[in-house]
C-alpha cells in the first residue's frame, strides 16, 4: 500500500520553476530518502504535501486522500520536522509542546517527557534562549509527540551534533519498526544511505530516478586529485566509471565509481607526488552521473 502518491506534481512560483511533473510513491512502512542538491525542489514538494503551498498542476495523495482538499484530516497523522525550526520565542519548551499536543485529539503528555528524555531536552527553558541544535530537538519532539503514522523530515540533522544525530536516527528507526512510514529529505548522500530503504533523486525540479537503496548501496563514488611527477597523456585515466575528468599537465582530477583497484593499478604504474581521495558532494555525483538521465 502506498502512503504517499504523488502524480505529476508541478509548482511554479510565478515564472520561477519549483518542481515539474514530479511523480513517485512512498510505500507503507518504508523509509524513503528524498535527495537532491539545494534548490532542487525537495522543500517545495514537501510543502505542497502539507498544503502550505498549492500546486500549479498535478496532485498528491496521502493515506489515499487528497493533500489539499482533505489536508486537515490527513495532517492529524503526520509529524513534520522543517529544515529550519522557529517557534514562539516567549514560550517555554514545555508550553510549546503542550500547545502542539493540544491540536491532536487523544495525545498523552507522557510521550512528551519520554521523547524529551531521549533527546536530552530541557523542558523548562525559554525557546528564546535555546541554541539552534536545541531548537531542532524541540522540533523533533514536536514532530513525534502525537504518534504520527507518517513522519516527514526536511533536512533534519542540521545543527545536531554526531551523538544527537545518532540518537535521532535510532528514534526514527524505532518508529519505523513500529510501522511508521518516513519521508526523509536530505542533500547528504551518506545520511540517506545510513537509514533509507529506497531513494528518490530530484534535480532541478524533476525526479531523476527512484532506486532501491541496495542498488545505490553498491555504488562507491570517490573523488580523486592526483599530482604526478611527469606530465601524463590526457586519456591516461580514461576508464569506464570515470567522470568529470580534467587533466592539466602533471595534475589530474576526476570522480570514479567502480572497482577502486583499477585506479590503484593506474597510480601504481607511475610516480606520484600527491594524492587526495575524498567523498564527492551529492551535487558532483548528480552532475556527472545523472545528467544524461535527467
Amino acid at each position, binding site marked *: 500500500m502506498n502512503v504517499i502518491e504523488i502524480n505529476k506534481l508541478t509548482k511554479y512560483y510565478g515564472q520561477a520553476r519549483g518542481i515539474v511533473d514530479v511523480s513517485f510513491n512512498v510505500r507503507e512502512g518504508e523509509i524513503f530518502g528524498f535527495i537532491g542538491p539545494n534548490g532542487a525542489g525537495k522543500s517545495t514538494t514537501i510543502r505542497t504535501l502539507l498544503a502550505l*503551498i*498549492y500546486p500549479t498542476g498535478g496532485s498528491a495523495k496521502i493515506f489515499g486522500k487528497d493533500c489539499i482538499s482533505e489536508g486537515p484530516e490527513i*495532517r492529524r497523522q*503526520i509529524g513534520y520536522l522543517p529544515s529550519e525550526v*522557529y*517557534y514562539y*520565542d516567549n514560550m517555554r519548551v514545555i508550553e510549546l509542546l503542550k500547545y502542539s499536543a493540544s*491540536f491532536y485529539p487523544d495525545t498523552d503528555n507522557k510521550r512528551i517527557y519520554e521523547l524529551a528524555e531521549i533527546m536530552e531536552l530541557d523542558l523548562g527553558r525559554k525557546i528564546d534562549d535555546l541554541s539552534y541544535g536545541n531548537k531542532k530537538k524541540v522540533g523533533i519532539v514536536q514532530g513525534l509527540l502525537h504518534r504520527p503514522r507518517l513522519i516527514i523530515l526536511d533536512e533534519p540533522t542540521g545543527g545536531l551534533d554526531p551523538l544527537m544525530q545518532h540518537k535521532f536516527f535510532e528514534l526514527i528507526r524505532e518508529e519505523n519498526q513500529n510501522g511508521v512510514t518516513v519521508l526523509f529529505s536530505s542533500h547528504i548522500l551518506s545520511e540517506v544511505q545510513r537509514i533509507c530503504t529506497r531513494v528518490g533523486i530530484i534535480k532541478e525540479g524533476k525526479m531523476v530516478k527512484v532506486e532501491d537503496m541496495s542498488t545505490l548501496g553498491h555504488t562507491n563514488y570517490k573523488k580523486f586529485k592526483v599530482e604526478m611527477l611527469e606530465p601524463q597523456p590526457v586519456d591516461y585515466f580514461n576508464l569506464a566509471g570515470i567522470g568529470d575528468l580534467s587533466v592539466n599537465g602533471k595534475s589530474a582530477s576526476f570522480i570514479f565509481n567502480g572497482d577502486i583497484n583499477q585506479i590503484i593499478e593506474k597510480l601504481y604504474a607511475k610516480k606520484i607526488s600527491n594524492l587526495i581521495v575524498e567523498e564527492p558532494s551529492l551535487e558532483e555525483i548528480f552532475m556527472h552521473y545523472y545528467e544524461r538521465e535527467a
Partner: protein
Amino acid sequence: MNIVLRELRANLKSLVIWCLAMVFLIAVGMVKYAGIEAVGQSANQLLNQMPAVIKSMLGMNELDLTSISGYYGVFFLYFALLGGTHAVMLGALIISKEERDKTADFLFVKPVPRSKIITAKLAAVIINLAVFNLVTYFASVFFVAQYNRGESINDQIAYLMISLFILQLIFAAIGLGISGFAENAKKAASLSTTVFLITFFLSAAIDLYDKIDFLKYFTPFKYFPVVEVMQGSFNTFFLFLSTAIILACTAMVYVTFQKRDIYI
C-alpha cells in the same frame, strides 16, 4: 480554542500597555478640566480664537468646553486615534506575524483548516478590542465622576464607547483584510497604518472645506459625529456602511488567506 488562548496570551502585554495609556490619557485630561472650568466662558472665547485647522485637528469644533460633557466629547477624537491605531495594527499582524516570525510552519501544518485558524484569531482580536473599550469606558466613568458636579454623563460616555467599538472593529477589519493580500507582515502593517492616517487626515480636511463633504463616506472618523452621538442618535446609513466594511474586509481575509501560499 487553544489558538484563541494562545493569541490572548501573546497579546496580553501589549494590551495592558495600551489600556494603561488610555487610563493615563483620561486621568490627565480630566485634571485639565478643573482648570478650564474655573476660568469659565473666557476659556471658550480663547479657544474660539484658535485657527479652524487646529481646532478641527484637536476635535474641538462645536463643543462647549466648559460643560463636562462638551469637554469629555473632545476626548473622542483621541480615543478614536489610539483605539484605531491599536485595532489596525492588531488586525494587520495577527495572522501575518506567523509568517514574519516563521512560526507558520508550525501552526499551518496542524490538523486544522486555515479558516478555523482565522476564526480563532478573529475572536482573539474582538476580545482584545472589547477589553480596550471596556477599560476606556470604566476609566472615563471613574475620572469624569471625580470632576462632575452636575448631572451624570454616563449615558453619553456609553454612546461614545459604542461608536468607538464600531470604529475599532472597522479598522481591525481593514488591517485583517490588507494582511490577506499583502506579501508580508511588514507591508501589511505599513499599508494598514497608511490607510488609517489617510482616513484621519481626510476627516480633518472635510472639516475645513465644506465642498469635499461628500468624501465623508470614505473615512470612518466621520461616521460618528460626537455631538449627535452624545445625544444618543446614530446615523442608520453609517451604521450600515460600517457593518458592510467590517463584513467585506473579514470575508476578504477568509478568501485570500485560504488560497495563498505560505512562505517562511
